[in-house]
C-alpha cells in the first residue's frame, strides 16, 4: 500500500548541504549555467555533483536543469548559487542587462520582439 505521494529521495534542504545561499534570488529560470571544469569540493553534495556533471559539456538553463535532475527550480537555484560562488559554475543572465529591466518592468523591449517575430518568420 502506498502511503501517499512519493517523496524526493533527498529533502530539498539537504540537497544543498544545509546551506541556502541567499544570493540564489538573482538566478532566473532562464539563467544559463555551465561548469568551469574545476573538480568538486568536499562540501559539495551528490546533488551539486549531478548538476556539475549535467553541464560539464555545455550550457543549460536553470529550468532545463530542474527538468533533467527532477528537482524543483528553487533547489536548482540554491545549488547553482553555491557552485557559482565556489567558482565551479559560470552563470549567464537570460537577457543582457540593457534589455532585462524593460522586460521585468512589464513591457518587453520592442527591438527584441521584432527580432523574435522575424526569427519565427524565417523558420
Amino acid at each position, binding site marked *: 500500500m502506498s502511503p*501517499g505521494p512519493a517523496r524526493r529521495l533527498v529533502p530539498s534542504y539537504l540537497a544543498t548541504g544545509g546551506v541556502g545561499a541567499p544570493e540564489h534570488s538573482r538566478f532566473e529560470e532562464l539563467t544559463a549555467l555551465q561548469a568551469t571544469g574545476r573538480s568538486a569540493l568536499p562540501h559539495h553534495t551528490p546533488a551539486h555533483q549531478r548538476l556539475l556533471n549535467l553541464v560539464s559539456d555545455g*550550457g543549460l538553463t536553470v529550468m532545463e536543469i530542474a527538468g533533467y535532475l527532477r528537482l*524543483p527550480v528553487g533547489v536548482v537555484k540554491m545549488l547553482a548559487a553555491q557552485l557559482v560562488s565556489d567558482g565551479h559554475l559560470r552563470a549567464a543572465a537570460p537577457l*543582457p542587462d540593457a534589455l532585462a529591466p524593460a522586460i521585468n518592468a512589464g513591457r518587453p523591449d520592442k527591438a*527584441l520582439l521584432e527580432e523574435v517575430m522575424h526569427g519565427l518568420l524565417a523558420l
Partner: protein
Amino acid sequence: MGSSPSSAPVYLPDSNQERVKVLVAGPFGIGKTTMIRTLSEIPSLHTEEVMTDAAAHVDELAVPDKKTTTVAIDFGRLTIAQGRIVLYLFGTPGQRRFKPLWSDYARGALGALVIVDTRRLADSFEVIDLIEESGLDYAVAVNQFPESPEYDEETLRLKLDVEDHTPLVICDARDWDSSLNALRALSAHLVSRAGGSL
C-alpha cells in the same frame, strides 16, 4: 521520456543568446503539451513545483490532509535568429487555483498563446482572466477537435469576450506549420502592442 535523467541533455547553442519565454496556456487536455512537443527542438521537459495552501480547499488535485499540491509545468525550446534567441514555451495550467504561481509564470514572459476549444470555450475563461490580470498580451489559438463546432470569427470573439486587436487563429497543435503560424500571430501582435501608445 525526455525527462529521464539518463537522456543526454541538448545543450544551448555555443553563441551568446537571449533567452525569453512565451506561455502556452489553457485548461487541461486542450493541447498545451502537444503544441510544445510539436514546436520544441528538444524532447519536452517538465518541472514539478509545490504550491502551498491554495489548493487545500479544492478538488481532485489536493491530497485531503495536505496543504500542498504539485503543479507540473512542461516546456520546450525553439532556437531562432541564427542562434541569437532561444524561445522557451512554457505550458501553463489555467485554473484560478494556480493563481499563486501566476506571478512567476508571467514574470519576464513576452506574451501568451491561449488555447481554446469551441466545445468548451468557458473552460478557457479563467486563464484569459489570469493573463489579462497579469498584464500580458496574448493571442488565441483555436484547436479543432473532431466534435468542435465551427463558429465564425465574430461569434467566437463575442463568446470569448476578447478585444478586436487580439489575434484569433485556427490551429492544430499536432501540426508544425499550424502551431508555428499561431506563434507568429502572437509575436506580430506583441510587436504591434509594443509600438503603440502605452
